[in-house]
């Protein structure tokens, strides 16, 4: 929500519009306001989807409870209220305020399929696995793409460059879920190289969550296939981006000057070329995070990896509305927060963008 500028506006009214303008031009504040607005927008969208669409889930549930289970309307409405964290008897606007207030307290309602289990608890149980696998996959793709992209730029038009370019385009064009299916079909089944059945789930049965080598090994074993999928399908884009970015950086005057000063080529590559070439990639990082998190929604069911994507897949298939709207909101919040972090990181790395007037 645009909470911050509005609050500030009340404070700043007697100071005139320019204070407001200066606050708005502040990079950090603008970013935070936008992030809050995004979360607000998504929660509002969810509310109206649930409430206003014909045959809305709330009405369907009430009808089901009164019709099939012989509940009185009163009881059914109460049940619906606790499940959706929405009171269907109140006027729409009050329902909306109520819903937002519940959200603030972290009350997302209860799962329809397992009544009594709060949605928040389910999310907290599964989200860490997804963040772990998606984060590691993204990191590997980014690091690998940066190194290989630089190699491609330095060895431009060599056989290696052409080979890597083709590989990058190929990985780039295959969507992650099809890649996942192919991994299972070829490596798991046809060649029998991977113990697909054992790799399902997030941990082997009996393995406790603890800080030990055995736990980390087991977690990595189960997450390996999703991580490799995220890493390889993401790698191509980073390689191609880093290549063009490095080629641009190689032509900069400061690189020529560094060469003229006789600096060792290795030092130039890392400190002069690499550091500058990597900057534009950070803006792509923000887009990529949302993309890869969305991808987990397809990749996790394929490998039967029980993270938030798998849970969402199940929730969608069984139309468990409170759970799926909670997960949807949670995924949006995670993406918004990581975007914010990436933006802040970027503004630390490249002070030029903090200047007002150059927003995006």
């Amino acid at each position, binding site marked *: 929500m645009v909470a911050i500028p509005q609050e500030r506006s009340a404070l700043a009214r007697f100071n005139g519009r320019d204070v407001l303008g200066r606050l708005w031009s502040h990079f950090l504040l603008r970013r935070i306001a936008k992030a809050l607005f*995004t979360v607000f927008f*998504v929660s509002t969208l969810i509310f109206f989807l649930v409430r206003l669409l014909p045959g809305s889930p709330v009405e369907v549930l009430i009808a089901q409870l009164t019709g099939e289970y012989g509940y009185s309307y009163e009881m059914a409405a109460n049940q619906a209220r606790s499940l959706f964290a929405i009171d269907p008897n109140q006027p729409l606007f009050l329902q909306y305020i109520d819903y937002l207030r519940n959200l603030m307290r972290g009350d997302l309602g209860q799962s329809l399929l397992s009544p009594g289990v709060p949605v928040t608890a389910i999310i907290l149980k599964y989200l860490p696995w997804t963040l772990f696998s998606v984060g590691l996959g993204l990191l590997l793709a980014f690091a690998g793409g940066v190194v290989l992209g630089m190699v491609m730029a330095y060895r431009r038009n060599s056989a290696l460059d052409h080979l890597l370019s083709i590989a990058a385009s190929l990985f780039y064009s295959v969507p992650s879920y099809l890649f996942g299916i192919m991994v299972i079909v070829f490596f798991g089944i046809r060649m029998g190289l991977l113990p697909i059945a054992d790799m399902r789930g997030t941990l082997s049965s009996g393995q406790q969550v603890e800080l030990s080598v055995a736990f980390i090994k087991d977690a990595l074993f189960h997450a390996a296939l999703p991580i490799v999928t995220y890493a390889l399908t993401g790698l191509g884009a980073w390689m191609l981006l880093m290549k063009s970015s490095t080629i641009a950086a190689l032509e900069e005057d400061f690189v020529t000057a560094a060469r003229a000063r006789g600096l060792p080529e290795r030092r130039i590559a890392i400190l002069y070329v690499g550091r500058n070439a990597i900057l534009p990639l950070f803006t792509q990082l923000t887009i990529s995070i949302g993309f890869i*998190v969305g991808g987990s*929604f397809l990749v996790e069911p394929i490998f039967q990896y029980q993270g938030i994507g798998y849970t*969402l897949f199940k929730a969608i298939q069984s139309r468990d509305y409170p759970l*799926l709207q909670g997960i949807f909101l949670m995924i949006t919040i995670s993406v918004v927060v990581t975007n914010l972090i990436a933006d802040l990181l970027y503004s630390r790395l490249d002070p030029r963008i903090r200047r007002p007037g150059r927003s995006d």
Partner: protein
Amino acid sequence: MAQTTATRGGERREAEGGSTVASASHRSPAASRGVGWGQVFVRFLRHDKIGAAAFVVFGFFVFLALFGPLLTSTDKVTDLSQLYSQPSRDHILGTDYAGHDIFTQIVRGTRSVMVVGALAAAMSTVLAVTLGALSALAGGPLDSGVLLITDVVLTIPYIVFLGVLATFVKLDSPILLALIIAAVSWPTLLRAVRAQVLSLKEREYVEAARVLDLGTAHILFREVLPNMTSYIVINFVIAMTGAIYGQIILYFFGLVPLSGDNWGLMIQFAFTKGAIYFTNSLWYIMSPIVAICLLQLSLVLISRSLEEIFNPRLREG
């Protein structure tokens, strides 16, 4: 006869305000030089072998979409003696979990994939072009508002948004399916269109139209849009690849009623029937995947060729 066609074309141009490809050719520089896009196109494809191949592949899929359902039989014959059979003369691509011919399913599935893809791409293109161009021309609060909403929708993971949205709607018609895909896929295109219009806005002929006070509608439909038709066409092709992936995803999740023929449905069945875990079902699972990849690859290559055809400067680089 020629006279009537010309008039009708002219009328259409008036009615739709230059948002179609046909009308743009009247204003394109190539046409004014007496060379039609057709000739440019043919001449170009002689040099661009990959692009030509992509057009041929795409043309083949269009042919399947148009005539496939007429050439194959509707009834699926369940043949339990032929489960997951390997390719043979009777079954070019083998059979599936119930002995149905896979090749027939691929052929029959082409139409719905293409129709929904094209419809969704058309819807999101129309929305993105009108809204993007208007907001760029108008500027001010409208522009900031549109941009803000666009950014917000862009932040939400596309696939998750699509999946969640689809649970609230009963997707029993191709139009609804296309609509829901379009509803989540317009933002990227809108940003692209807006950026393009912002740069076109500063050109002399737009300035001139503004000085003459010809009105926003005139400037938008007669000056700005006809000059970015090529750009819109390319983005339409790209939007179509997105829409095709989108519908495959919706089918894969089982969010679309499981009837009819569609490649996504084939993958969904292969997945739920456990076909991906069988050693002899390779043809069943890989056929739709290869078909999707081929179609997508041809579209991506076509968009690249179009870019080079419309923008000759790229050819030298």
